[in-house]
């Protein structure tokens, strides 16, 4: 089709409406006249049309392949954030990951020097809904005022517009490990569990529901006396 020939399109469209091969031949002979090249072209296309059947290209691309196309490639670098600075915080190792955010240990330089936990929304996740949920999480934490719940220290947005918030860094191991390595008795374990419940109750009294309590998330450490 060196130039788009409307006549080819029209002849083709008429021809495919004729299911009977003999009728088609008749029609093509009349429509193409002495133009053999045109006739050959149309015949080839008509044949392809019937071989293709009704469904070829009719469904827009979708389904499993579209999903795989948007999944991150396995050879993409794991985290572009480590070492970068967000305000007075320099990100160090990643210590956690949730549905929406990544948690890092960060070094704070100003106004005090200390290590903190910084939760940063994942890259590419800044639709209004996700941001609202992230912000709601920060607000909920900020409401907490309990010795066994890490305090929110700071919050903000990076220069690229990614929300984050900063919390006390709680050292320690998952409470289950803590219990095992310190060989706590059943009574002592229940005592720890009670502390967790009290912390959760505090949240409930503030109108906040956790929705994602995990044993791995609960930390045990000895308070300095």
């Amino acid at each position, binding site marked *: 089709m060196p130039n788009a020939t409307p006549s080819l399109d029209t002849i083709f469209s008429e021809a495919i409406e004729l299911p009977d091969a003999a009728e088609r031949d008749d029609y093509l002979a009349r429509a193409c006249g002495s133009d053999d090249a045109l006739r050959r072209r149309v015949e080839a296309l008509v044949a392809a049309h019937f071989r293709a059947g009704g469904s070829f290209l009719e469904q827009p*691309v979708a389904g499993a392949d579209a999903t795989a196309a948007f999944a991150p490639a396995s050879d993409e670098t794991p985290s572009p954030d480590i070492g970068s600075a967000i305000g007075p915080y320099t990100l160090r190792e990643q210590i956690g990951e949730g549905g929406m955010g990544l948690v890092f240990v960060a070094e704070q330089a100003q106004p005090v020097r200390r290590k903190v936990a910084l939760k940063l929304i994942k890259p590419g996740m800044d639709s209004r809904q996700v941001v609202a949920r992230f912000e709601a999480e920060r607000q909920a934490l900020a409401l907490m005022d309990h010795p066994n719940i890490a305090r929110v220290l700071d919050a903000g947005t990076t220069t690229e517009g990614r929300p984050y918030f900063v919390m006390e860094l709680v050292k320690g191991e998952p409470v289950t490990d803590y219990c095992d390595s310190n060989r706590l008795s059943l009574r002592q374990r229940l005592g720890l569990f009670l502390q967790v419940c009290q912390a959760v109750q505090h949240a409930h009294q503030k109108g906040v529901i956790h929705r994602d309590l995990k044993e791995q998330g609960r930390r045990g450490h000895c308070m300095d006396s």
Partner: protein
Amino acid sequence: MHDVTRLLDAAAAGDPRAAADLLPLVYDELRRLAAVHMAAEKPGHTLQATALVHDAYLRLVGSDVGRTWNGRGHFFGAAAEAMRRILVEAARRKKRQKHGGGHRRVDLDDVTADPDGCSEELLALDEALESLAREDAAKAELVKLRYFAGLTLEEAAECQGVSLATAKRRWAVARAWLFDAISMIPPNL
């Protein structure tokens, strides 16, 4: 987001650079939206490419009021091309992994199964589409709008500024042409 509306207006007024500048913006938005969708959904959920394109339109252009199809046509043209590139990249990547390109050690979990050979089909279609574009740009564009952006024939006709009857004819010819090209028996056009 105003960048996109500005570009759409410029493209509708005939600025070819504006039309080209749309592509990276739309491409980024599609990837971003996909990441959001994927993170929110359970594993095994399938991503509807055309829903993504319409979502991107809403987010980048916003309210539809007063926007003619000519303006929207440039958006969907860019979205279709962006979607095509994203999918073709992924298909190529999958193909490389299957054939152990680079001899990296790859966990089996990382290699997505491709039992239907959908990647091969997509790559073949992509090649055929390139050829078609050289022969008849309007037909190739029509196929992209329908297949990659998910527009109906009516919507695509409006995008291209042709009658529905013309779009129908072109669509029928393009389908046959591509089927032939993919079957490696191209008609002598």
